[in-house]
């Protein structure tokens, strides 16, 4: 019987379990979970604070998931080293696990720059884990002033989640715009306006350099008084286990299309991994949940001796703030073609007769049709591009292609 070990108990781990079980119903699966919780939907921690979900509904899988898949979970301990020669993992509690195939699914951790005086701040929080959200929740009061450092996805989702439970929220970022990793300058401006209309204050192109208890001194010299500080500057992939074992690591653990690392029998998946991004034709960390599942599943299938390759992963985000929806995908590469619609803006990025990426603000209906054009690298001269710009519809395909996808085999 094969022995599988999975480090981490998030979405990539679940994908890995389901991948293994699609091939091998019997092998022994052991999961090492640093967090003391059964797997939960990490992106829902802001919805939890907003009251749109609760701990029960946040469960990413049903209560019987581990039993149904015959997984043994070690909660509240972590892996400290991998010995790829002996095929063993050492845990913090000094126990050792043997493996035939190992999946590193350790995710990422918050990156906290060395701010001067940070230790003088009493109420400071990260926003990555359920426990972070539960801790933050305890500090929330109706008139608390909140400073969030970082106007990225995590910082802004946190802001949305707590807005109705605090007095005022200021978000600062060294970047000159919100959501700088997924929006261009024009689109960021539109989104910022919407966020401001919903009560958020921004200090952009500016960041805290020093903290004095309840006061932040900004790079610009301004000061911001706060009761609660949330640090959402960025994240770092948890790559150390593989790096220390001599494996190939850049920003993430370098993996092939089968999720194999450079160490034999060691796979990696999710936020800790740097896999192939087909929209740029190179490896990069794609820290999004769908990718964590897809990579985990691919790793699991291959760990169990099956054959699965992940060749069309791309960055893609669907994110809403106060009822306003934003979708982005791929790379913003090549010619930009803009289409203003009644309720929103669409920007398409085209090169080599292919759709490379898009940004949609406000109008997101059937956007998966666009995403599919990027992932499948559909030549744009085989579709009705003018129609595509206006609406995402299956009418853009030829009747023949449509029949193929819709299964009309008559």
């Amino acid at each position, binding site marked *: 019987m094969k022995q599988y070990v999975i480090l981490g108990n998030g979405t990539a781990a679940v994908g890995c379990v389901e991948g293994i079980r699609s091939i091998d119903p019997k092998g022994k699966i052991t999961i090492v979970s640093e967090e003391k919780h059964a797997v939960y939907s990490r992106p*829902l921690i802001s919805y939890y604070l907003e009251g749109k979900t609760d701990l029960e*509904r946040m469960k990413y899988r049903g209560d019987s998931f581990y039993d149904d898949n015959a997984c043994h979970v070690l909660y509240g301990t972590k892996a400290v080293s991998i010995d790829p020669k002996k095929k063993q993992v050492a845990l913090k509690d000094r126990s050792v696990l043997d493996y035939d195939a190992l999946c590193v699914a350790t995710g990422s951790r918050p990156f906290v720059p060395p701010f001067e005086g940070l230790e003088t701040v009493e109420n400071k929080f990260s926003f990555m884990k359920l426990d972070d959200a539960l801790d933050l929740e305890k500090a929330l009061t109706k008139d608390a002033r909140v400073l969030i450092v970082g106007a990225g996805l995590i910082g802004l989702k946190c802001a949305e989640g707590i807005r109705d439970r605090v007095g005022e929220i200021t978000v600062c970022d060294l970047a000159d715009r919100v959501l700088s990793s997924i929006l261009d300058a024009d689109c960021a401006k539109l989104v910022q306006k919407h966020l401001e209309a919903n009560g958020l204050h921004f200090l952009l192109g500016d960041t805290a350099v020093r903290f004095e208890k309840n006061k932040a001194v900004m790079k610009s010299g301004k000061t911001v008084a706060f009761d609660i500080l949330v640090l959402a500057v960025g994240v770092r992939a948890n790559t150390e286990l593989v790096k220390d074992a001599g494996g190939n690591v850049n920003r993430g653990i370098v993996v092939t299309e089968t999720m194999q690392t450079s160490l034999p029998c060691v796979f990696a998946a999710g936020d800790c991994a740097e896999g192939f991004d087909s929209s740029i034709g190179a490896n990069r960390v794609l820290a999004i949940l769908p990718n964590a599942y897809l990579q985990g599943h691919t790793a699991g299938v291959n760990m169990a001796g099956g054959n699965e390759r992940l060749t069309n992963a791309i960055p893609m985000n*669907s994110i809403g703030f106060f009822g306003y929806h934003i979708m982005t995908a791929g790379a913003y590469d090549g010619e930009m073609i803009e289409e203003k619609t009644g309720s929103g803006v669409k920007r398409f990025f085209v090169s080599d007769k292919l759709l490379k990426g898009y940004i949609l603000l406000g109008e997101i209906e059937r956007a*998966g049709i666009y995403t599919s054009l990027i992932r499948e690298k559909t030549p744009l001269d085989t579709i009705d591009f003018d129609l595509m710009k206006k609406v995402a519809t*299956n009418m853009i395909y030829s009747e023949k292609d449509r029949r193929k996808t819709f*299964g009309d085999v008559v």
Partner: protein
Amino acid sequence: MKRVYVNEKWCLGCHLCEYNCAFANSGMKDMVLALKNKKIFPRIHVEGDEKITFAVSCRHCTDPLCVKSCIAGAISKIDGVVKIDKTKCVGCMTCVLVCPHGALSPGEDGVMQKCELCLENACGKPACVTGCPNHAIVYEERGERV
């Protein structure tokens, strides 16, 4: 696995399938009460132009990307049917972002909904098929596809 298929040559573009779908999933007994003067949120929709029309609903893909992508773990495939646990959905629309067919859309409450083949509502089999006046929508076995 039986699925809903559409023959676009026979589709009249009458949108009756949308109404039958909305009614079947309304949980109500009276079609007039369920739909009259209301904006409907069907799980099937007609696309097309003056010449061609066809109805689109969930393909219950062999390898469903929506299931793998849902950030809430709210979508699963059970006995061949892709289903949403509406209590878990937070309306993030990631399924809309990834569905290559454009087959999901939010319901009136902002929670996502999709075709679940009417297997669990009073209809028991796809209402769009039963009500299609030109038999352009059928429910049959045609083998697996992505």
